[in-house]
């Protein structure tokens, strides 16, 4: 379709851009193996000593555990709320249906700093002490849209009539959900959940405001960088965070785009495009 030269130029450009995305991530992994505690290039000696330092650091361990708990709780809440909202919007016509889609998107469309200060001052006014739960509330709020978009895209591709058919055949609502809807929705739910998990796992801006004195992994890195903590240990933790966040996103992508048909890929990109679209319709 395109001329040969144009095609090759485009290919080279694309590969360079994707490399641009990945070189810094590769660099952080390399630095994690830097034996020296001075971060200069080229790295002279490689070792795994800082891995062992980080592994035995109780603060790092606690931060990992907290991040994990927060991400699990936020994902669970986002799954329930996002699925319920997507059913309402996809299967019912009611006054304000567009406002619901818009409402779901606002937390991720507004700059994180606004969400952060808004939640922090509300927690302070309401006298809620900062804890795992305040962090979770912030994360769940902006994770809802991820599940919502994944599930609604799937629901829109399904025939609503299969639900009626199931009911006509005598299944009750629970059975219809269990045997008819859930198998169809499963991969969308898993993908949405994985992406929500990854988003919560890495989130730093809102967390800075809702964590109080609690330390998640991104907060630990942020504090370390701000206060000149051990660069070598930060390298190791950063590398592990990157590798761990790649896993859920990669799985989610395979689940939604790996089915072979082209429209599934579009559905996935839709998660992001929908954010843009909803933002624009809100103006």
């Amino acid at each position: 379709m395109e001329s040969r030269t144009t095609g090759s130029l485009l290919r080279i450009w694309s590969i360079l851009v994707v490399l641009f995305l990945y070189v810094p991530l590769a660099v952080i992994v390399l630095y994690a193996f830097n034996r020296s505690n001075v971060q200069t290039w080229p790295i002279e000696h490689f070792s795994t000593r800082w891995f062992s330092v980080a592994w035995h650091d109780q603060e790092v361990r606690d931060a990992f555990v907290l991040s994990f708990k927060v991400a699990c709780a936020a994902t669970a809440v986002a799954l329930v709320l996002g699925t319920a909202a997507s059913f309402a919007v996809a299967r019912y016509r009611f006054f304000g249906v567009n406002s619901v889609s818009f409402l779901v998107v606002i937390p991720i469309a507004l700059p994180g700093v606004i969400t952060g200060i808004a939640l922090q001052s509300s927690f302070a006014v309401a006298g809620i002490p900062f804890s795992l739960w305040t962090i979770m509330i912030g994360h769940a709020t902006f994770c809802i849209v991820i599940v919502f978009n994944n599930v609604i895209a799937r629901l829109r591709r399904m025939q609503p009539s299969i639900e009626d058919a199931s009911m006509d055949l005598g299944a009750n609502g629970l059975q219809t959900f269990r045997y008819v809807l859930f198998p169809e929705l499963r991969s969308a739910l898993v993908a949405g959940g994985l992406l929500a998990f990854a988003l919560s796992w890495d989130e730093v801006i809102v967390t800075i405001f809702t964590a109080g004195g609690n330390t998640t992994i991104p907060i630990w890195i942020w504090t370390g960088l701000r206060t000149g903590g051990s660069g070598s240990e930060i390298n190791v933790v950063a590398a592990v965070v990157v590798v761990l966040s790649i896993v859920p996103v990669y799985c989610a992508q395979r689940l939604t785009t790996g089915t072979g048909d082209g429209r599934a890929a579009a559905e996935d990109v839709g998660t992001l495009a929908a954010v843009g679209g909803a933002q624009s319709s809100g103006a």
Partner: protein
Amino acid sequence: MTKAESPLTRLSAFFFRHRGLKLVLLLAVPLAWLIGVYLASLGSLLVQSFWRADELSPNPVHVWNLDNYREFLTGDSVYRSIVARTIGFAAITTLVDIVLAFPLAYYLTRVARPRTRRLMLVLITVPLFSSLIVRLYSVRLILDDGGILHSLLATFGLNVQIGFTELAMAIAFAYVWLPFMILPVYAALERVPGSLIEASRDLGAKGSTTFRTVVLPLAFPGVVAGSIFTFSLTLGDFITPAIVGGDNHQLIGSVVYSNFGIANNAPFAAAFATVPLVIMAVYLLAARRLGAFDHL
């Protein structure tokens, strides 16, 4: 109607007849959460912006006034230059990302094989969900004195400082927001029917003419959608200036962050936080005026 056999069946039948009730149940908790927790917080933030900070206590004095807005609109000019700098960074980031993203998105839709396309889409999406702070830190490691880029340039006899400069911030912004530009542009290009391009060619248009008159106008909404991300993300960011820019290049987000926390002036932070909101509202209205959303 089905014969009610078990309570569950009866319940299902009940909900089938009362669809409205089922809708209320589906919407109750999500709406309670988003309105009760989130919108209420935003509302109270707006209210706070009209109060006055109390130097002696963490709680603002509840005196209604416009001083916080006056402070940055007509007061110290440093706030206006920070707004201008932030918009400048947002604009440069957007342009750089469009240049980087467009050929890639075009390649994915019109040249790449389906397998390659899927793989590259996954590769582009992964950084979107990887830690912002880690990605910024790695940019800093590369750009700092003694980092890879600095050392590489030094071997060519170029001894330039990049770390903690405005250039470093621009590179960092372009880097972290790039996937947010690629994906909407890709989504828009994917919706351009191949038949339109063939038709243009059949009618005798050169490749460049087809690109300018067919592809570009149809891809424009995607570019605008991407620019909404890059703009909005830059306008609220305080992490990038803090990690990559040092303390000399404050942006809107940095001012909000430091006033809210360290300076203990939450009302001013709340007022200043409306600046990115107003800028984005104007931006979106302008984009709509340009007809950018007609095709979305």
